[in-house]
C-alpha cells in the first residue's frame, strides 16, 4: 500500500509536469504558417487533394519510410521470436474445428475485403485513407481466412516476396524522386495530373499502393506468426 502511495505521488508529480502543456493549450484559431503553406501550395506542388496524404507521402515521406520500416522490423522480430519459440516445442499440432458458416462467409467476404483494401489505398490521395488503412483492411481479410481455415498454410514465400517487392518499390520511388525530380521521395517525377482525379498527384498513388501492399503483408506476417502459435495446443 505504501508503494502504491508512493507511485501515486509520483504520478501526481508527473501530472503536475505535463499540466504545463495542457493549461497553455488554447486551441488554434487559424493555421500556423507552415500548415498554411501546405494548404496553399500542397495542391499545386504535390497535386494531392488529400492534404494529409500530401504531407504523409511527400512532405514528410521520409517519416513514412521510417514508419514502414518499423512495422517491417516489428514483423521480422515477432516472426523470429515466435519461430524460435515453436522450434522449442515438439508437441503435436492439433487443430480446432471451425464452424461451416464462418468458412462459407469468409469465402464470400475475403475477396470483397481485399477489394475494399485496395480501393482505400489507391484512393489515398483523394479521400480519407491510404496505404496504412488499406493494408490494415487487407490484413483483416487475412485474419478471416485464418479464423475460417486454421489448417490453411500461407505461402510464406509469397508474403515475403510481396513484402520485398513493395518495400523495394517504395525505396525505388524515393530514389527516382531524387534522380528525376527535386529530391528523395518527391512525387513529381510523374505528371501531377488534375487535382482530384484518380491518376493525379504524381507518384503518390503508386507509392501508396506499395505502402498498402507492404503494410498488408507485414501485418499479415505478424498475424501469421501468431497464428502458428494459435493452432498449436
Amino acid at each position, binding site marked *: 500500500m505504501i508503494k502504491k502511495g508512493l507511485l501515486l505521488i509520483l504520478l501526481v508529480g508527473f501530472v503536475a509536469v505535463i499540466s504545463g502543456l495542457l493549461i497553455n493549450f488554447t486551441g488554434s484559431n487559424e*493555421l500556423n504558417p507552415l500548415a498554411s503553406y*501546405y494548404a496553399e501550395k500542397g495542391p499545386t506542388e504535390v497535386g494531392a487533394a*488529400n492534404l494529409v496524404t500530401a*504531407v504523409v507521402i511527400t512532405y514528410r515521406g521520409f517519416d513514412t519510410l521510417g514508419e514502414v520500416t518499423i512495422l517491417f*522490423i*516489428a514483423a521480422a522480430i515477432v516472426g523470429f*521470436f515466435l519461430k524460435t519459440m515453436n522450434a522449442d516445442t515438439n508437441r503435436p499440432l492439433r487443430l480446432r474445428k471451425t464452424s461451416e458458416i464462418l468458412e462459407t462467409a469468409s469465402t464470400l467476404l475475403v475477396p470483397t475485403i481485399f477489394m475494399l483494401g485496395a480501393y482505400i489505398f489507391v484512393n489515398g490521395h483523394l479521400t480519407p485513407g491510404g496505404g496504412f488503412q488499406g493494408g490494415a483492411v487487407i490484413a483483416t481479410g487475412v485474419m478471416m481466412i485464418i479464423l475460417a481455415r486454421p489448417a490453411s498454410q500461407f505461402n510464406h514465400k509469397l508474403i515475403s516476396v510481396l513484402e520485398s517487392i513493395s518495400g523495394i518499390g517504395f525505396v525505388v520511388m524515393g530514389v527516382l524522386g531524387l534522380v528525376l525530380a527535386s529530391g528523395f521521395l518527391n512525387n513529381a517525377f510523374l505528371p501531377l495530373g488534375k487535382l482530384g482525379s484518380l491518376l493525379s498527384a504524381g507518384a503518390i498513388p503508386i507509392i501508396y499502393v506499395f505502402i498498402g501492399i507492404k503494410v498488408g503483408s507485414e501485418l499479415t506476417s505478424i498475424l501469421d506468426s501468431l497464428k502458428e502459435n494459435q493452432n498449436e495446443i
Partner: protein
Amino acid sequence: MAQYLTLEFIAMLTGFILIIIGLWGMITQKNLIKLVIGFSLFDTGLNIVIVSMAYVKNSTAPIIDKAVDVSQAASKIADPVPQALVLTSIVIGLGVTALMLAYVLRMYREKKSLDINSYTDLRW
C-alpha cells in the same frame, strides 16, 4: 473558464487523462497483459492529444474537394501536419504493442507466469 469549454480542449483533456490512466496502469498492474494495455491506452491518449492539437476552430478535414476549394483551403481546414504525425504514431504504436505482446507470450512460455514480479532474475 469558457476558453476551456471548447471541443479541442475537451478532447485534449480526455487525451491527457487517458495518458495518466495508461501510465497508472503501466506502473501498478502486475499482470503483463494489463501492462501492455496500459501502454496501449497511453498511446491512444497521446494520439488524441495530437489530433486535438490539429483542430482549428470550426475547420473541416484537410481534403480539397467540393466543400473546400483550393483558394480558401488555408482558412477552412484543420492542420494536416499533426494528423500526418498521428498516422505514423498509430502505426508505430501497433508495432510496439505487437512486439510487447510477443515478448509477453515468450516470457509466459519461459515461466508460466504473467506476474511481472516473476521476471526479476537480472538485477543489481
